[in-house]
């Protein structure tokens, strides 16, 4: 049984990442690699679709934080969508909800870049 899985795709010059399951310090490397791979391909518009993300600890949040400055300097952004209530509460606790855009659905998140 895989506790964490990840896939991503590109649409309209926006990379959409789909983390799935339980994202903790054990699985964070895989998540970080994906963000870096996307940035190395010079895509700076990233949507993290959290529809199937059940759990995130500060290890995962650290990755979302660590590249934001560089991404925004390069006129890009990280937006989150489809976050369930429990995970949203955690993002809210650390103050992410003041810094990142949280959108209801993926299309709105992608279009928010246009």
């Amino acid at each position, binding site marked *: 049984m895989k506790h964490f899985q990840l896939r991503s795709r590109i649409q309209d010059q926006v990379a959409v990442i789909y983390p799935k399951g339980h994202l903790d310090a054990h699985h964070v490397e895989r998540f970080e690699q994906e963000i870096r791979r996307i940035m190395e391909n010079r895509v700076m518009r990233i949507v993290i679709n959290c529809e199937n993300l059940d759990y995130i600890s500060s290890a995962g949040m650290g990755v979302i934080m660590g590249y934001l400055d560089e991404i925004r300097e390069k006129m890009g952004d990280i937006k989150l969508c489809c976050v369930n209530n429990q995970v949203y509460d955690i993002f809210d606790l650390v103050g992410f909800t003041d*810094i990142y855009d949280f959108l209801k659905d993926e299309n709105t998140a992608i279009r928010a870049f246009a």
Partner: protein
Amino acid sequence: MFKVEADLTVTIPSSTELLKMVVELTRHAVEILEFPDKEVQQIALAVDEAITNVIKHSYRYEKGRDIRIEFFIAATGLKIRIIYAGIAPEMDPEAVSVERLIKQKRKGGLGVQLMRKIMDSVEYSSSNGLNICEMIKWKKRETVG
């Protein structure tokens, strides 16, 4: 308030692979106390953060070192004690805002903040080469009974 001996004790080796197991075990232990669902999830996260820090900072990712987790369950609340060896934690690292962490391109710095936000008290202590992280969460009035 809390008994002297733990109600539930788990000793795990320092491996991030076991974090999820500890999170689910904590959820179960906390559910028995009938905390609201949201608090159950968050208390389990606080334990994840504490143990992740032990593995990362105290044991520098060295595997097979012992981490002992003790749960003290009382009608009024829950105490969780984590006992470990390795490098002693710095006392009370200052909380840095997310804005600052982002400007500094930091990929960490949220764990202890989260623990403090979730739990009612978080205390670190060390003596004789053993380190202890003790966290307490009280049950709110309206949720008792």
